[in-house]
């Protein structure tokens, strides 16, 4: 259950919260509703997969404030903002800060559902990539310092002879290191190795 993508709906207006929640449930989505940003943060659900549907204007911590705080903590859950009235500067700020979308009340249920589904898909993609990144990082951690030096030079495209001369070791020693790196990182070929490194260098 805890791995089921969930829509976290936060709105201070009970009627809106209730109605939208009902709509999403009727559409087959898992929904959890909160009356305020603080209530959401206190619930300890921020790490769970899914997306946030937030009202921009709320007493206390506003939608934008919550977005800022989640990003600061490294949570990348997609956020769909709702607003009672189109407020262009606020929308721009939200989008710049990485909002998934910005929709205006009242809205077509289909529109919201479509955006939510996109957001959920984006979140699961995101989470998969993150899992790969985590796995590659774990493998990289197995390398000895000398193997790491050899890997850096191989990734730069240097020949074994050059690497041996730079590191002051024999060519056969370089070849041994290179083989162990390939084994530890579970890479079949040079191109596998390069893709893995690229994944690791990706910004989260």
């Amino acid at each position, binding site marked *: 259950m805890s791995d089921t993508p969930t829509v976290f709906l936060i709105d201070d207006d009970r*009627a*809106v919260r209730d109605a*939208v929640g009902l709509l999403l449930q*009727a559409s087959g989505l898992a929904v959890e509703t909160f009356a305020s940003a603080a209530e959401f943060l206190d619930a300890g659900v921020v790490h769970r997969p899914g997306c946030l549907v937030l009202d921009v204007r*709320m007493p206390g911590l506003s939608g934008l404030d919550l977005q800022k705080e989640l990003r600061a903590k490294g949570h990348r859950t997609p956020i769909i903002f709702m607003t009672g*009235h189109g407020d262009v500067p606020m929308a721009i700020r939200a989008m710049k800060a990485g909002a998934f979308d910005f929709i205006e009340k*009242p809205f077509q249920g289909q529109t919201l559902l479509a955006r939510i589904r996109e957001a959920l898909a984006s979140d699961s993609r995101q989470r998969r990539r993150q899992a790969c990144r985590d796995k590659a990082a774990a493998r990289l951690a197995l390398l000895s310092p000398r193997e790491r030096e050899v890997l850096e030079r191989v990734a730069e495209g240097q020949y074994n002879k050059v690497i041996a001369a730079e590191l002051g070791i024999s060519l056969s020693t370089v070849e041994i290191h290179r083989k162990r790196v390939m084994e530890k990182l579970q890479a079949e070929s040079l191109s596998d190795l390069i893709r893995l490194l690229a994944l690791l260098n990706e910004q989260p």
Partner: protein
Amino acid sequence: MAPSEDRPWPARRKALLSDEHRPESGWRRWRLHHLHPAAVSLLFTAAGLLWLLVVDPILAAGFHGDGAKRLFEQWPNVLVTLTGGILLYGLLQARANSAARARQAQELRLSEFMERMFDVAFLKDRQGRYVLLNPAGARLACRSLSECLNRDDLALFPADMARKMMEDDRRVIASGELLSCEDTFTFQGDTRTFLSTKWPCRDSAGAIVGIIGIARDITVEKRAEQRPQRARADLEARVRERTVQLLTINENLERQIAARTRAECALRDSEERFRQLAEHIREVFWVHGIEQERPLYVSPAYEDIWGRPIHGLHDRPQDWIEAVHPDDRARVQAAHVAKRHSGHFDEEYRIVRPDGTVRWIWDRGFPILDEAGHTYRIAGLAEDITRRKLAEDQLRRQQVELARMSRLSLAVELASNLAHELNQPLAAIVAYTQACLALLHQANTDPRVLTGPLEEVVKQGLRAGEIIRHLRELVHKHPAVQSALDLNALVRSVVHYAQLEVRQAGVALRLELADGLPPALADDIQIQLVVLYLIRNALEAIGEENGEPREVILHTAPLDADRVQVTVRDTGQGLSPEVRDRLFQPFFTTKAGGMGLGLSVSRSIVESQGGQLWATSNPDGGASFHFSLPIHAPS
């Protein structure tokens, strides 16, 4: 003692005052008729004979040498000469007789005059004895005439009087001149004054033989004279006194005149300066006479500004009011009438120049008081303010435009607020309905589960209607521009719409509304916008602060007898001096997204309603914005 008793005057006079004794000047003694007629005749005859018998023959013999014959031929001439001498004698004798008779008659008249005259006339010899005295003199001495003669004054008059008279006599004899003097004596128990005139009596050789004199008793005249004299002395004293006074007055007067002259000079100078000023200033300087009911002076600028001749104004004072624009005329006329009493005049009005152009005039007058403090003239300045007026008009139009634009932007913001309010129930309605639809699409749905969501839909629909009703109230309910306004109700109503913003800002809003606040007179919607703006301003001021407390207080109270006041007090960062100076300037803002129009427009709105808007710093931090409005006085 009758004058007729004896008449010694002519006789005596003949004895003493004969021709020989009469003092005469030298040449008169040698006049011919004073010689005896016989002597004259004999002389004439002798001279004729001498010429005929001696001189003529000698002369003839000298020229012709024939003297004997000529002597003989002279006898008829001798005869004629002798006859002429006899005739001459007869003639002269006759003339002498007639002259003597005339003199006798004259002397007779003189003696009569002497006897009858009231003045004393006398002749004394050198020793002072009376030789002649008229009856008036004898009467004065209280003696008969004969008793007086050959006696001197000492024998006839009191001693002091006699001595004075004799002393005068001696002076006349010594000097040989006429003496005239006034003497006052106590005489016969009475103070009497005499005017006496004396002169010496000379014989034919010129030697002084006596004294002739006249004396008059002038006691009565003197007394008569003395009364006016005393009166005159009195008068003179008074005159002197008065003169001193007059001199003093005169000195004062001179000083005053000098001062006045100086003042006049100064006045003339200042008048000259004034004239130069009045003639050259661009404003029309005028002086209006209250009694005269017409302008006494109007400076030349009138012709420039009014485009009408000044003399026309002097001839027809109503020329001025006829130049006033018809729309302003009644008002100006009323002010013109009122100024006669108050002396004050301050009007702006338009004039129409003869060429049809219109100019704005600012005309103001002030009273000139006389010494008694009454207004007797009004002086004033009329200024052409057309340019300024046009600039003002333009500024006013710009302000109106700005206010309109800002009201629009305020209205847009208000609408934004309301839209949010309204969109909440709408969003709920839509979501509930679509949820219901989604449930209905599912095959196994029990329709009863739709009851709850559909009831919610109804509730949210009603909620939206409520919001729309409030909106209509806010925008359309008050068509009257200015009406009696319950500020407390207005504040509550605005707070209702600002509630969301207040909540979002995490600010506590407190109302301190005065009970029984008198209604204000203002435009409802405009004042609502101002209050909303001030609340929003306060929220923004607090929003930038992290401190506590976060509070906005809305306060209403009577300001004074005529005004009520609304205060919006915040706990924000307050006003720095430089901000406070520019606070109400258009396009000044401390906010990132603000246009800087809110406060300046709010102030324009409040001022257009006859109120004021101002800001103060709170002693415990934050700022307060206040505005006042006039109280609605039910008529």
